């Protein structure tokens, strides 16, 4: 009789890990250069200090932005296709407002345990939210880059002027997610190694 080894499952399969880190690089490059571009014609009464921007001047910042947009978009497309094909998206559901509220209040009182390989309702909502912001930032970015040729994206965003605000607020949402994401990793550091090595869920 052949003895079957109990199956051990990785927490993060290698395609997900690869896409995660490529996306991290793309996001940092896009936001850093985007802040420098913003400074050339600010929408609000503040600018981003040059110390935290990428590119130092508008020409270089645009060059970085329009170079790394390809990484962001292609990596994102591969992620959506891979997630749909592998069933990864199922991890974000089911999701109800009640569950979000329950887990949110539990998290605030530090009573929400981290379950390896399982997303709590707040995580599900945040991940779905940042994916939505990702779609919005790409569409509004294309609207600003090509308001004539890709006029339908521009119309969808409410015109060229509004598209710049949409792009800015989508960036704000992603930057906010990024900050919370880093904070939570700092609070639960054991989640970091599996994003590099894959990790194992013991049966």
């Amino acid at each position, binding site marked *: 009789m052949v003895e079957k080894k109990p199956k051990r499952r990785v927490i993060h399969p290698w395609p997900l890990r690869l896409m995660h880190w490529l996306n991290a690089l793309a996001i940092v490059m896009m936001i850093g250069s985007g802040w420098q571009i913003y400074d050339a014609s600010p929408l609000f009464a503040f600018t981003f200090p040059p110390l935290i*921007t990428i590119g*130092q001047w508008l020409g270089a910042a645009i060059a970085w932005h329009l170079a790394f947009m390809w990484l962001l978009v292609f990596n994102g497309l591969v992620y959506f296709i891979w997630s749909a094909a592998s069933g990864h998206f199922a991890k974000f559901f089911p999701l109800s407002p009640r569950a979000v509220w329950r887990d949110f209040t539990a998290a605030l009182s530090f009573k929400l345990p981290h379950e390896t390989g399982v997303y709590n309702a707040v995580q599900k909502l945040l991940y779905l939210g940042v994916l939505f912001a990702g779609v919005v930032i790409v569409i509004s970015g294309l609207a600003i880059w090509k*308001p004539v*040729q890709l*006029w339908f994206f521009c119309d969808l965003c409410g015109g060229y002027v509004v598209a710049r605000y949409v792009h800015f607020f989508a960036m704000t949402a992603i930057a906010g997610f990024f900050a919370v994401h880093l904070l939570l990793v700092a609070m639960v550091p054991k989640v970091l190694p599996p994003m590099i090595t894959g990790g194992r869920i013991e049966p």
Partner: protein
Amino acid sequence: MKNINRRSMLFRAMALGAVSTLPGCDYEDPAHPDIADKFLHAMSAWNDRVQEALFDPHTLAPTFRADQVTNPPRFNAFYDISQAPVVDPATYQLELGGQIQDKSPWSLTALNALAQTSQITRLTCVEGWRVIGEWEGVPLGDFLRRIGADTTCRYVSFKCADGYYSSIDMPSALHPQTILALKFLGAPLTPPFGAPVRLRIPTKLGFKNPKSIMQLAVTNIYPGGYWEDQGYNWFSGS
């Protein structure tokens, strides 16, 4: 020399895997490109090709109502408005060069005698802001055909009274909304805003709309441009 941004340097190193070969800022010295510059140049060339493929000669830039025109217009150049060149319209001659059959220069009177078209379109600056203006002038495609330009050439280049220069691709030059503008809001162009002749091309960013054009040439040799040679994307289509 601007401050060297250490964080940015680190990101570049991550991106390119070359820590020791990043001596300065990006595009600071076009004559001595570092590895980051070469990477950005390659991506910019790729973006040129993508934009050429994306360009549809039948897609028109949006037009606006007369009451939406930004008036007075917004001045923008690499120098202060007080230094804008003043060209005498009486003696003005548009010089022609390159792959053109009839290279006789054109006076302002002769240009004004050609069939004119007007447009209320948006000028989008690479910085992000936009203005709306009403320009009137000669469709560049009509003009190129009239002077016997070889429209199979790749580039149309422009040299300006202030030392500015730029160039556009032939398909964009032949776009119906690309005009040699002579007037703004029904009156002849004024010196800071491109008098006596400027390019108005609403399918490209603002810096691809050279002002006070003195020379026009048709060529297959890449002419570059004032900002393009410093690192801005050449095609810069809208």
